[in-house]
């Protein structure tokens, strides 16, 4: 009978798991180092050229992470009002005229009116807010916004007790927003927040980024930023704010109700029906990293959703 010789490895020679994991990590970092020169470097031209500088003071909640390159922040956008590819907004948004601008405030509040942009910004101390932005498509950025808490804006309109939700609407003008000539989405773009989400100190209105006035393709002249929700909640180029008793039907929710919910909180435990939300690619990095619950802001916002089934209310 033939004897079978198995190469016996003394247990002491088997790679312990931490070392093995370290090696994996080393190989990933090593591969990244080799491939790093392949990553795009900053463009020579200043993407913020011609945009006025803003004076602001450091604000709370700063993400202590490397900022995403300006060229990516201003050149890789989802803003379907200017086309559906990532480069369309930067190419086409020059037709948007952010000045003069006004916002209609309506619904359950004591001071409904048509406010000019200057009215709205008067007395608002601008803050730097470095936030992570996680797109529902599975990529993310770290963006230095300039803005102010939404609560300090909404407070001025004196919402009444009936104001349970706040609804935002983007400009509808196919002349300025050529992407609206095709009905890829039901225009105008509508988004909304529960009142407590809107009044949360993390929620801001951004009027700038990287210390300058907001470029058109990023939602000039004023946009919402809700960092613990998928990017599509952070509605751009707002012309209408309404205080409502019931939740609005938001645009992506209307377009595909099974895929995009009203809440749209960043949640690695609840996948998009067609792709995973467990990991994300930070723009500028090659490999994916783990997506954090509420995009890493769980400590600040998880309490808003106590008792709410986040799988059903995605």
């Amino acid at each position, binding site marked *: 009978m033939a004897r079978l010789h198995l190469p016996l490895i003394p247990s002491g020679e088997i790679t312990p798991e931490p070392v093995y994991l370290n090696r994996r990590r080393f190989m990933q970092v090593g591969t990244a180092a080799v491939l790093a020169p392949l990553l795009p470097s900053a463009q020579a031209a200043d993407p913020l050229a011609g945009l006025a500088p803003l004076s602001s003071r450091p604000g709370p909640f700063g993400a202590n992470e490397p900022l995403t390159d300006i060229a990516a922040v201003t050149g890789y956008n989802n803003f379907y009002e200017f086309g559906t590819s990532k480069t369309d907004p930067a190419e086409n948004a020059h037709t948007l005229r952010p000045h003069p601008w006004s916002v209609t405030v309506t619904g359950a509040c004591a001071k409904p009116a048509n406010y000019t942009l200057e009215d709205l910004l008067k007395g608002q101390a601008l803050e730097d807010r470095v936030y992570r932005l996680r797109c529902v498509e599975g990529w993310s950025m770290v963006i230095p916004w300039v803005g102010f808490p939404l609560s300090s804006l909404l407070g001025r309109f004196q919402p009444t007790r009936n104001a349970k939700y706040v609804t935002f609407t983007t400009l509808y003008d196919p002349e300025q927003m050529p992407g609206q000539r095709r009905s890829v989405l039901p225009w105008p773009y509508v988004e909304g927040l529960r009142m407590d989400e809107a009044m949360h100190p993390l929620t801001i209105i951004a009027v700038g980024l990287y210390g300058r006035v907001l470029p058109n393709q990023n939602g000039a002249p004023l946009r919402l930023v809700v960092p613990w929700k998928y990017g599509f909640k952070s509605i751009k180029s707002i012309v209408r704010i309404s205080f409502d008793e019931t939740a609005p039907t938001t645009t992506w929710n209307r377009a595909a109700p099974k895929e995009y919910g009203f809440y749209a909180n960043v949640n690695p435990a609840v*996948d998009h029906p067609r792709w995973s939300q467990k990991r994300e690619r930070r723009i500028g990095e090659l490999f994916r990293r783990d997506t954090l619950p509420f995009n890493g802001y769980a400590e600040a916002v998880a309490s808003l959703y106590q008792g709410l089934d986040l799988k059903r209310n995605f």
Partner: protein
Amino acid sequence: MPASLWRIGVWGLLILPALWTIIGLQRGSLGPDPVEALMIASGIWALRLLLLTLAMTPLQGLSGWVWPLTIRRQLGLAAFFYALGHLLVFAVFDQNLDPAAAWREIVEHKAVWLGMLALALLLPLAITSTRGWIRRLGPNWKRLHRLIYPAAILAAIHFGFQVKADLREPLIYGAILTVLLVVRLPRGWQRGSRTPGHTTIS
């Protein structure tokens, strides 16, 4: 032109999209998310080459030219290689070479497993594309290679599943595929009834 030179020339053309993408990667002109750009380029070229492969037989039938049939095998193989590259980018950069994560992704999302299934169908076709296999399989070779139809349909659906709202592009590819499949129908009937000697290689 000698056949081998002709074949090298065709391979030279078929490698261009890959070359173009790699140069773009090096120059940093693929945009802020080069991995996504690689995924899109490899996937779309796999689908385009599948459609081109399927277009060769009708083109030969319409024009009477012979060359479409002589390059068909190369087109099909190139489609397979681009699809393989697509899978490689997915495995390395999207799944960080983590087999468990990749497996979860494949079984949990039909958008992904439809694509995997399409590639799995192409694998035996790529393997049996040699002269030796054509001889060995005889009439079964043709039967086996009809798997390109379901593979192309799956690939087109897989593409449609990637899109959030703007279905224009997937619909164009779907329409082309439909035409390429429909023009085969009457020929299939003909072959079954009247013209047994007709040399359709579909």
